[in-house]
């Protein structure tokens, strides 16, 4: 409960700070709209040439794009501000201030900062998903919605764990502020349904760097193409990755020789 209250205070603080910079808001909104348009043109070009890719047609691929944009918005607003700050703080030695606070350091380091303007992407992503479902004239059943939600929740945890794993390496490779670029480069594959890629790549994208669980599988669940096995795989993967990343974080902290001590 205490942590939830703290989270509320953090987010309110960030929102108030960002409201001071209104020009930023306009520019961010424009850029977001632009990139969403770009994603749509991207799949538009492909389906201009062919009616289907595998079993996915334009409207189904639209659902994947919607989820891609939605998650991009979530990650950019909840996690990314913290990554940049933390890498900088480790480099400057001010990370000690995070460690000396009477709260769990992982909680503080990964969730303190929040970028409200990126939530526009979440809204746009949700709108695209809505449009896609309408065009398909599909009303997901309760079970399908539950499966989709479970997979989306595990997707958030998976994305968080992957970020945390990458972020923890900053304790050793101090100048890795561009590690986020590597994540985004791999995340780009999530724009398209994973069945588009050759078999071996599908395996990699499902279990090694589970991008498929972030965009394709939630979309497939809502469309009723996914069985209970996949949902359990997603939840198990999320739990496993979260545990692994938390353990790695604790390991890193034990071996952290900070700037002063």
């Amino acid at each position, binding site marked *: 409960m205490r942590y939830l209250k703290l989270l509320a205070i953090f987010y309110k603080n960030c929102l108030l700070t960002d409201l001071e910079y209104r020009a930023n808001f306009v*520019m961010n909104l424009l850029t977001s709209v632009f990139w969403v348009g770009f994603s749509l043109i991207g799949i538009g070009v*492909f389906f201009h040439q*062919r009616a289907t890719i595998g079993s996915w047609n334009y409207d189904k691929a639209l659902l994947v794009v919607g989820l891609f944009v939605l998650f991009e918005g979530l990650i950019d607003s909840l996690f990314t501000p913290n990554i940049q700050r933390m890498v900088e703080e480790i480099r400057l030695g001010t990370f000690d201030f995070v460690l000396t606070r009477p709260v769990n350091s992982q909680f503080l380091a990964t969730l303190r900062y929040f970028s409200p303007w990126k939530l526009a992407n979440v809204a746009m992503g949700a709108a695209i998903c809505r449009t896609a479902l309408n065009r398909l004239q599909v009303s997901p059943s309760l079970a399908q919605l539950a499966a989709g939600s479970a997979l989306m929740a595990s997707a958030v945890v998976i994305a968080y764990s992957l970020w945390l794993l990458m972020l923890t390496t900053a304790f050793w490779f101090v*100048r*890795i502020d*561009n590690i986020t670029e590597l994540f985004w*480069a791999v995340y*780009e594959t999530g724009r398209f349904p994973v069945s588009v*890629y050759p078999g071996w*790549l599908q395996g990699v994208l499902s279990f090694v760097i589970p991008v498929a669980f972030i965009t394709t599988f939630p979309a497939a669940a809502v469309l009723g193409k996914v069985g209970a096995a996949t949902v359990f795989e997603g939840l198990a993967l999320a739990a496993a990755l979260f545990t692994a990343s938390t353990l790695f974080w604790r390991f890193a902290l034990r071996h952290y020789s900070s700037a002063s001590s």
Partner: protein
Amino acid sequence: MIRSYIALIKAYWQVVLEYRAGMVIWILSNTLPLVMLAVWLALAAEGPVGRFDAEEFIRYYLILLLVRQMTTVWVVWDLDREIRLGELSPKLLRPIDPIHQHVAFNWADKLFRLLTVVPLIAMVLAATGAWPEQAGAGRLLLFAASTLAAWTLRFLSQFSIGTLSFWITQSLALNELFYAGLLMLGGVIAPLDLFPDLVRQWATYLPFRYMLSLPVEILLGRLSPSDLALALAMQALWLLLWFTAYRLLWKAGLKRYGAVGA
């Protein structure tokens, strides 16, 4: 001038070697052409798309990856930071124009890529039998010259956007819009030949094609002589335009920078 460049490049080569982990990450993050290749290959599995069959797609995207690796520019971020935080001031005291430092850093990085990733891509091209046929010395030379021009165009345009930081705080956001244009009309999302005619006309007049797609088109050898002449002329024209923009913006910006009492 040559001596100062050699000295600068030596210095930045040390920096590149020091941050080789970061450099490798930048190289590895350049995967979008490969992602697009995977998607287009899936489409081409049922038959050629336009005049592109599977082999042609592989050829196109591997060469595009090579050109992209050799034309990456990040100067807008450095400039934005230098202007905003006042780091530009010590650089202005030096006897050479600050732009040369940025050029030298970029060239040191390109040297790194020339030694690491370019041979790798060339080997993959040879191994998959995708090396463009009848690519004689003349075409290779033109390809190299066009790639150099593409780099210059990209550098000058990003530098000009960076100088806007003298006036506004959102130059990075503007650069993002420009970058999206490059992805679309520079041949990354799809080879420009696969776009409808109207889009291709736009692509001929905008600078994006000349920053990435043109060298690839040249090496693939599918441009008719008249198309080639027009394309090279447009590339030269855009080079002139961006160079002029850079000079004007830089001079005006420095005056403003001085006025704020840096």
